[in-house]
């Protein structure tokens, strides 16, 4: 299937600072695509470029296989950086402007206000809203006219835990309805829980991209110890499915092929007359993986 968004060799400089360096990736239709990276890695710059508010120094992008860009944006619901609304206007009137620009029906405003839980505050001015309410309104505005694609920059910013969970389940529900979602975040948790695909940026360079299970696959490690470490190492070198053996702190750290479980290591050693004094399965956390990738 044709990608919803295709990014080719995008480069962007702010004076001497290179915000994006030759970044290319595709966002497959129907995915929840996470753009992950630490602060200042170029996530928002990337979203700004694909939404036409920043101008790339080099490279191209195309929506829906090359649709005219203004027309494409009318079919994309976006929340970039902060909620931007007319502060002196009530929520309902702010949504009127969004709906009119997007050429969506005005009736859709009430559905959206219900969805984000602001129906009762629809006549309050935007400037009276709390940070979380502003964020909700921005998400609501993005949903006006049932867009095919949502672009969300740190969508859970400013929300309380209940709000975060709500947005998460909303994203999943919308994705099931066939909406493609692009999320930029520095919150690993967020990406891990909702994304099907991910691109990892670091200082403007694309490190990795692809299905989340490939990119963020966590390889488990097994830690073993025995009285005679040298003998243990010799034995384990003969075992199938062990890719790497590292010596660390008086024990051996085994990087295994998928499917190798600690019991197999134990029985392999005892069959060869060696008793293990220590056997632990070490799960590598996503955070460790992320730190490894980005530092």
């Amino acid at each position, binding site marked *: 299937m044709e990608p919803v968004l295709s990014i080719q060799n995008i480069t962007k400089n702010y004076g001497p600072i290179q915000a994006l360096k030759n970044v290319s990736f595709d966002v497959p239709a129907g995915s929840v695509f996470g753009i992950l990276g630490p602060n200042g890695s170029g996530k928002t710059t990337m979203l700004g470029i694909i939404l036409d508010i*920043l101008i790339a120094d080099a490279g191209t992008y195309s929506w829906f296989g090359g649709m005219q860009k203004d027309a494409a944006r009318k079919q994309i619901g976006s929340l970039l*950086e902060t909620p931007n609304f*007319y502060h002196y206007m009530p929520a309902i009137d702010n949504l009127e402007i969004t709906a009119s*620009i*997007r050429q969506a029906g005005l009736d859709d405003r009430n559905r959206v206000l219900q969805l984000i839980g602001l129906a009762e505050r629809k006549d309050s001015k935007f400037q009276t809203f709390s940070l979380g309410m502003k964020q909700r309104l921005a998400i609501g505005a993005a949903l006006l006219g049932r867009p095919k694609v949502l672009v969300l920059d740190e969508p859970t910013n400013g929300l309380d835990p209940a709000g975060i969970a709500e947005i998460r389940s909303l994203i999943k529900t919308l994705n099931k309805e066939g909406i493609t979602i692009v999320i930029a975040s520095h919150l690993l948790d967020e990406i891990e829980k909702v994304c099907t695909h991910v691109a990892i940026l670091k200082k403007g360079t694309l490190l990795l991209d692809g299905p989340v299970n490939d990119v963020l696959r966590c390889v488990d490690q097994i830690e073993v110890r025995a009285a005679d470490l040298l003998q243990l190492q010799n034995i384990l070198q003969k075992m199938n499915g062990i890719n790497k053996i590292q010596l660390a702190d008086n024990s051996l750290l085994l990087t295994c092929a998928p499917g190798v479980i600690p019991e197999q290591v134990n029985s392999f050693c005892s069959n060869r007359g060696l008793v293990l004094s220590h056997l632990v399965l070490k799960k590598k956390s996503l955070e460790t993986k992320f730190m490894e990738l980005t530092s």
Partner: protein
Amino acid sequence: MKELIAIEWMKIRRYRTFWVLTGLFLLLLPIWNIEVAYGFINLGGGKNGVNFLSTAYSFPEVWGNVGFWGSIFVLFLSILVIIITTNEYTYKTNRQNVIDGWSRLDFYHAKVLLVFIISTAATAYMFLLGFTFGLINSGSAANVFSELHQVGYFFLLSLDYLGFALFLSIWIKRSGLAIGLFLLYSFIIENIAKSIINHWTDLPVGNLMPLQTSDELLPFPLMQMAKTMIGQGPTISMNVYAGVTVFWCAAYYFSGKMILAKRDW
């Protein structure tokens, strides 16, 4: 185009500053003219002051007179244009408009249309005031339309001032700085530059500067008289001033467009 105007209207109809400044323009302009017409504002002050200006409230001079005072009150509207435009930058709603599907040019054209609409409305109001004052003070409807082109001049002047205000706002983005520079330029910088140019060239070409050229279309009513009395040097015809005003308006439009197309938002 209708759509752009409709959305621009949504933006300002609930904006209190818009109504306050527009209301003050609508209220203060006739009050000021009444004061001038009936000698409240005069030379020397008080009830015995010399009233030079009130004579100019009958047809056809009334057009030039109301037009001149109106041209000063256009400052209200210029500041309004600056506030409305720079607000978009302050609250990043210009970005949101584009994110939601407008092109940058849509955003710009909505504001350009607003400038046209405010200029047209102000001109219609100036016509109404001139017509009313003229009828009251002339006693007859003779010569009503003989100086009517002054109304057209007022439209050009409004377009010039508001267009300049829009250009400054797009260029500078920040409300306070844009208003400050606008006032500084219109009252001081341009006058300094004009005088220097006129002095050096010994010709009135400094009068063709962006705002001055439209000011020349509606001069202070007594200035004409004074100039005739003194006996002046070379002059520039009104048609040239009008043409140059149109040129400057086009220059604001195209410069603004260029800035918007190239810049990050």
